[in-house]
């Protein structure tokens, strides 16, 4: 992709994420090749692509779960560096939802939600719990607050994971294949939760294969293959008039399986 245009530079205070020429290697394996991506405030991006295309790795660079060897990433005006304190500060404002939920199994749902607000944001326990209950209501499972994650279904666990991230009051939410480990019946409840979140104006980057979600929610769809961004476009254009042959092939495969 081209470097950001000057028109966008004027909006720089609205710019939440900026990735410039990011390269990453696992040993000798070049996983990310020259990733350039700018995400505005309240923008919703869906990243898709075949497995191994580097899409998860790309979003995991944004909160520094993965290191990268070249290029720069600026999140909410702060450039990522090796400074541990800075990274922790950025992570407070960037929520992440994982494919396998990664809830803390030794803590109840409510404890999962209040842990970070109490220990990272230094919020008083009572306030954190009230806050958490609001978010659990928003993901429609307040009645499960005292249960342990192991007692919930996959869809419920993923909604708890979303609530847990929201409790930190993040400015950006990253979703790493949030529905890939779920039974078909449970995918909808998680997608619905994400749609409500989108309607509230959350800045979102979502790696997913749910093309229906991409069509209705995304402002922009990005297609990655072989560690590169092959194409980015509005959902309408992307699905009806893909620019590259590779995108066309991918779409034909996932839409007619």
């Amino acid at each position: 992709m081209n470097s950001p245009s000057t028109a966008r530079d004027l909006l720089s205070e609205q710019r939440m994420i900026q990735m410039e020429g990011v390269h990453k290697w696992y040993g000798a394996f070049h996983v990310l090749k020259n990733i350039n991506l700018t995400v505005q405030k309240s923008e919703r991006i869906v990243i898709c692509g075949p497995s191994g295309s580097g899409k998860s790795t790309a979003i995991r660079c944004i909160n520094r779960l993965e290191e990268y060897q070249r290029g720069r990433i600026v999140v909410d005006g702060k450039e990522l560096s090796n400074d541990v304190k800075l990274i922790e500060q950025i992570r407070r404002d960037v929520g992440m939802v994982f494919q396998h939920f990664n809830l803390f199994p030794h803590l109840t749902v409510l404890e999962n939600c209040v842990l970070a607000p109490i220990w990272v944001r230094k919020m008083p326990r009572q306030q954190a719990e009230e806050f958490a209950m609001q978010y659990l209501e928003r993901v429609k499972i307040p009645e499960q607050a005292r249960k342990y994650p192991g007692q919930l279904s996959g869809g419920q666990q993923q909604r708890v994971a979303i609530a847990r991230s929201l409790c930190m009051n993040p400015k950006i939410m990253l979703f790493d294949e949030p529905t890939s480990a779920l039974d078909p019946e449970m995918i909808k409840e998680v997608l619905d939760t994400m749609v409500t979140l989108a309607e509230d104006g959350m800045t979102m980057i979502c790696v997913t294969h749910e093309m229906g979600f991409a069509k209705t929610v995304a402002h922009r769809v990005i297609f990655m293959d072989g560690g590169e961004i092959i194409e980015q476009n509005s959902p309408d254009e992307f699905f009806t008039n893909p620019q590259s042959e590779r995108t066309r092939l991918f779409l034909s495969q996932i839409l007619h399986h």
Partner: protein
Amino acid sequence: MAESRLPHPDLPPPANTMGLLAWMRRNLFSSPLNIALTGLAAYLLWISVPPLLNWTLFNATWSGDTREACQGASGACWVFIRVHFEQFLYGFYPEAQRWRVNTAVLLLILGVAPLFMRTIPNPVKVKLGSSLLVVYPLIAFALLKGGLFGLSNVETSRWGGLLLTLVIAGVGMAAALPLGVLLALGRRSKMPAIQTLCVTFIEFWRGVPLITVLFMSSVMLPLFLPEGMNFDKLLRALIGVTLFQAAYMAEVVRGGLQAIPKGQLEAAAALGLGYWKTMALIVLPQALKLVIPGIVNTFIALFKDTSLVLIIGLFDLMNMVHNATTNPDWLGFSTEGYVFAAAVYWLFCFSMSRYSQNLEKRLHTGHKR
């Protein structure tokens, strides 16, 4: 129109799968081999249990104060234990000062009891437990050693019996677990200096027998210390036992750390938790729970290993019993003595084992992660 369909009702299980008879058929008489084994086991119990009961209970002598009381009895002479009982408990601790030992034990029970009550919330328990860990050893030491507040000084060389066994085991457990956790974390650290240090420490202590450690602490160490500087023999044994067990503990804990999926660390990191908070709040609670059997295994081994201090001349329970059997007035009762010592060790170790099983059950929050 859809046909209305009644759900299949729940039926009782077939008659011959429930109850005592069914249990016996399934577990004792399920095959010719099992029938033979059941018979053999019954026969072994038949020939071994009655004589054992006769010796320990029915033909044993319970009352009296001298060995003459046991003359002619074919069973055990428990009079031997009764006469030496206080010695077994307190060693050579001065008789007039033994209330201090009792007070220390009572304080410990009072302090620890709330930790075992389910009605008390966990955060309170953590605070109580950690302050107890710091404060109690000081109080107990002041009480037992004396020399302060008008308490007369009792040299540690006079501490003995079960008291000494519990002091060594208690200090060993309380110090080896935290130290072991730190060593385990250090061994998995990304910082090469810390990692090398921890690996070297662990491999050194695991490579040496405890007896050697104790000998070194009592015989070799004074040679390296400057003239006139001499620190307490018990303290040296305590340090030796603690460092030795901490190395084992570290490897047990490391096993638990390795079982925690990477996703847990990633989720904690994504929420902005730093290293120590991630370890303390997310990783260790899960890892330690997983290795409760291993931790208790190490504790039990430690408890029994305390008897090795007899080789450096400390009179723990084992050595006190051994000492009593060589008392010229009471020769010939070593069986009773060692059976008694075994029973005491067994009681403590079995309690630990049962408690750990109970703990595992209680901490089980269900199912997969």
